[in-house]
């Protein structure tokens, strides 16, 4: 009964994230239109090092659009039962996250809307993603799959902030909360809640990987 509830919740999460990803991907196309400027960019300019910032924004958006669904798919039992595919896609995802997503996110965070508090929030999220991704890869190489899964859960949880944060922003907008306050709260709540949720799931004896099934031996070595 409890397992089926967990499975249902993880499938619901996967569905919401997939829908959120589609919405974000469609909304992000405007960042790549050659002769136009996206409303978010209009709002943010002027920034120091404008070319660097604009480049970082495009790289960040593009890498997030690619890596977020990859993280979701990598967490499914379907792909986990295909170790060769899981390993190959995992390498691509890990490389993109470490080499593109995190560095570009750090560049953007210096000019974050909402000031220092939001900068710290984005920094924290980037740090969790970076540390968890590097540790996750290291634990996979050690064949410590439980640790690998825990770390990757943190990566996916932080990446889900893109969806949950925008959902909260919409809610706060409808509730009439001041945009600057809404932006800060809508970042911090998902960042902290995602880290706690990932840790809580990792602490469960048989935590799901979006409806994950077989228990994996702690170490095969």
């Amino acid at each position: 009964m409890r397992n089926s509830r967990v499975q249902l919740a993880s499938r619901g999460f996967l569905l919401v994230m997939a829908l959120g990803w589609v919405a974000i991907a469609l909304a992000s196309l405007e960042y790549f239109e050659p002769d136009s400027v996206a409303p978010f960019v209009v709002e943010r300019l002027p920034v120091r090092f404008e070319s660097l910032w604009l480049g970082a924004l495009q790289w960040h958006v593009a890498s997030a659009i690619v890596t977020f669904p990859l993280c979701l798919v990598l967490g499914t039992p379907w792909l986990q039962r295909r170790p060769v595919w899981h390993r190959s896609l995992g390498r691509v995802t890990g490389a993109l996250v470490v080499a593109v997503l995190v560095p570009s996110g750090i560049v953007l965070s210096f000019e974050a809307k909402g000031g220092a508090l939001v900068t710290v929030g984005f920094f924290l999220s980037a740090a969790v993603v970076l540390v968890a991704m590097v540790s996750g890869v290291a634990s996979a190489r050690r064949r410590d799959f439980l640790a690998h899964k825990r770390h990757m859960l943190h990566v996916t949880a932080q990446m889900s902030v893109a969806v949950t944060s925008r959902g909260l922003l919409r809610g706060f907008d409808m509730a009439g909360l001041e945009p600057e306050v809404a932006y800060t709260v809508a970042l911090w709540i998902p960042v902290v809640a995602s880290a706690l949720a990932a840790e809580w799931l990792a602490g469960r004896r048989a935590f799901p990987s979006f409806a994950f099934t077989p228990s994996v031996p702690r170490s095969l070595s």
Partner: protein
Amino acid sequence: MIRSSSSFVVAFTFTLAAAAAAAPSLEAWAKARIQANLLQPLAKKEESRSRFSRAAPPPTGRRVRVLASTLSRDAKGRGFLPYAIDARYGDDEWSETYVGCIYDKTGLLFVAVGDEHRPAEFLLGKKAEPVPGVCQVAPPAERS
């Protein structure tokens, strides 16, 4: 003769006064121009904006204030009027969101982005580079 010429002067003065009253003031002209060429297209563009964007939600209201009733002159001697656009969310207070200037004769609109001014189409999402020297009052000696 004297009587007919004085009635002509009176009639002419009335005509001029009526014409002046009928013609919109510079301020009213600027306001109407900014409304039509910037605020209305901006509102229309915001209607179609994705709700899943990180950009701030569109305000519930915008208003334009023309900040002078007489023209200022830039370094090239062109006359312009400074303006400000206020926005508000719900019943909040109005707050100034953009400042810029509108040029007399051409009706060209510019908006301040940091220390520079860009054509106001920038707010409508069109790529527009900063234009040096616009909207800046030049000392009389510098005007060409």
